[in-house]
């Protein structure tokens, strides 16, 4: 009565179905996804909601919210529309979040993968460099970089990426160190697969889940860092970013708090959406961690 073990179990539902099933088990993560979708929608529809320059004068300065339907969320001290600022700001925040995260992840993956895969002196050298970066507080380094490179939006993005790659690098290194001794890596080597292919096509896909989760954290942090820069008036003044709005709203905080509070809420919700998203991804990608 032993089953000949050549009969295959019935197929599982496709991966994305399983993924979604596990993801939606976490209610908070679904909320995160909803908020994230909302931010994306804001970024996409900014041009429709308010065609034209968000930095132009749209009405009487310091109109409170809900007083004039031309400017539903009011205007700031220069008469700029807060609503369109929030919508256009979503674009900048997302752009910076995604681009800076990419920069950080790419640097982190390359350094971490090389260090973790080869070990030995490669690891020693790369890890000393990483540690050198880690000993300088992120934000101080960011201020220095922006001070040197200037506050164009591209430079800010790259600078944020440069200050955030250390954590993903260490994480990828740890993953690689445990994965490189697995038998499937030996199996690939035994097939004559080159080191580059082993690193990027065999090991990396297995190291990705925790990285994807962490990417959401970096995204949230990048948005916060950009806002903090803008708050210190080091952001790119040519774009309506949430940080810029808070920075300028600070001047009228007592008389017209909404100028700073509304973009502040936008930042809070966006960052919250990323961290909830990350938590959901963690549950969905590492199903064994939690029941």
């Amino acid at each position, binding site marked *: *009565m*032993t089953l000949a073990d050549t009969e*295959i179990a019935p197929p599982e539902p496709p991966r994305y179905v399983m993924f979604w099933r596990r993801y939606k088990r976490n209610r908070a993560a679904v909320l995160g996804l909803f908020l994230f979708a909302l931010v994306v929608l804001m970024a996409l529809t900014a041009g429709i909601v308010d065609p034209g320059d968000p930095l132009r004068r749209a009405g009487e300065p310091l109109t409170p919210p809900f007083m004039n339907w031309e400017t539903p969320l009011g205007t700031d001290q220069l008469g700029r529309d807060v609503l369109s600022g929030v919508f256009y700001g979503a674009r900048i925040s997302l752009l910076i979040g995604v681009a800076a995260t990419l920069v950080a992840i790419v640097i982190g993956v390359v350094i971490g993968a090389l260090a973790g895969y080869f070990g030995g002196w490669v690891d020693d050298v790369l890890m000393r460099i990483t540690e050198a970066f880690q000993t300088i507080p992120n934000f101080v380094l960011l201020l220095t970089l922006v001070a040197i490179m200037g506050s164009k939006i591209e430079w800010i993005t790259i600078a944020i990426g440069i200050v955030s790659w250390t954590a993903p690098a260490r994480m990828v290194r740890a993953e690689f160190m445990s994965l490189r001794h697995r038998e499937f890596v030996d199996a690939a080597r*035994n097939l*004559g697969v080159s080191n580059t292919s082993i690193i990027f096509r065999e090991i990396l896909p297995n190291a990705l889940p925790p990285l994807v989760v962490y990417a959401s954290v970096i995204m949230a942090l990048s948005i916060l860092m950009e806002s903090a820069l803008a708050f210190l008036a080091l952001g790119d003044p040519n774009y309506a970013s949430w940080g810029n709005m808070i920075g300028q709203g600070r001047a009228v905080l007592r008389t017209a708090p909404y100028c700073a509070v509304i973009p502040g809420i936008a930042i809070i919700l966006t960052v919250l959406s990323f961290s909830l998203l990350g938590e959901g991804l963690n549950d969905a990608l590492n199903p064994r961690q939690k029941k």
Partner: protein
Amino acid sequence: MTKTPPPVLDLCKLEISLPKGADRPFALEGLDLTINAGEIVCLVGESGSGKSLCAGAIMGLLPEPHVRVTGGAIRFMGEELRGKSDAEMRKLRGADISMIFQEPMTALNPQKTVGWQIDEVLRLHTKMTKSERKARALEMLERVHIPDPASAYNAYPHQISGGQRQRVMIAMSLVLSPKLIIADEPTTALDVTTQLQILKLIRELQEEEGAGVLFITHDFGVVAEIADKVAVLCRGELVESGTTDAVLNHPQHPYTRALIGAVPALTPPPVKAASDAPVVLKGTGLKKTFAARGGLLSGKRKAVTAVKDLTFELRQGETLGVVGESGSGKTTVSRIVTRLLECDQGSVELDGTDLLAATPKELRALRQHIQMVFQDPMASLNPRKRVVDLIAQGPIVHGADPKKAREDAKKLLELVELSPAAANRFPHEFSGGQRQRIGIARALAMEPKVIVADEPVSALDVSVQAQVLKLLADLRDRLNLSLLFVTHDLRVAAQLCDRIIVMQKGEIVEHGPTAEVFANPKHPYTQNLLSSIPGRDWTPPSLHADVA
């Protein structure tokens, strides 16, 4: 007849439910089992048959509420255990019912000395004074034949060997003279020679104490060695039970027949005439030491020699077995000849080309001639690749047309008796035996001259093991493959290998045709190894059954 004492353990229609979504609703269904004092009852079954949960149920250690006892009775000395409070169970555990676990390293607390851990049992359950407890612990260590009990008493678990750790576990579980001992695969993690000693020890102590033993195992050799009675479980159902002789030699139920039929017999294949086929793989003077990297201040530690001066020849179409216990360096050999591990000295000639002297580029090209089948089929298949890509990967790397390679991969799946429908699945969707078939197909895809198999069946259940071995033998004969077969299991080696090399501490102590080595071992180590095979006196009855 006078009133007989109640049996030590009486399971009556025991039923354990599994959580929703498991492969079956009940882990155990209607299990009846009786253990009398002074009796060893073996509970045998393949993985997933529910045998370990049975032990958990008796001890009251099931992972409730997901898995719990839903019906039946567990009577210990006539007393019902179900429904007892935690406090009452705690009193029983250790004192009257004790357990020996599979992996003594994880069952012992690494932070405490051996003596402390034995002492703890006594402290919790008796009112002995400190000096009495120490005397008792030392006496127990003496009884389990630990050399120098006084120093073992002060040793930490990592300072003593695996076999000694299991002895300590046994000492701990017997220190209060329990009436029932549950042993859950106590020898599975041990080498054969150690295994035999532990089995003898359990038998000896159990006879002295007159305790009842529930011995859980998957190995029929062990059953033949130790059991008075046998119960066979199949997917939670008791399919057969009876005396050892009845079950082992005259199995009735088809499942039992299939299981016993799958146990490799210890009769090696007949000696083939000395082959004059060309030598395809030749190792000369191989040497490997592992230098332990010391810390900054601790200085250099002693290097460990894994393989010293190893020389062997493998001819076309032949199977060479490398056998030995853990630490004998046999796995290192498999890694050196495939150059997954750099060797210190010596040469490995593959068809006349030295593999160890090849440059990285030459090596990549040479690799297609020597392929490997790994021990753990789950770990050796990249979990994120589809089966077809896993198999086709090698040929594609070596320049085959990807489309054709994938077509060939599907044909290979048929060759290893898997449906081509498997091609687009991921490795986790298969059972262990199926994964190993995929691993074999991957090795075959390169059309290698030599296949190195490192314990390819030791992670598999016995019936699956027999199927995979049969497949390997079949393919070898059909494709005229040369196999370097590394194993710790002499039964498996007897099945497949034409010649064997016996290794001890990195050295070859004996080599020759399998039949000769088995019939007439010359080196004491080989003799010891062969006489330690569990159940060596029992030859599985040849069942002309339909063993698939």
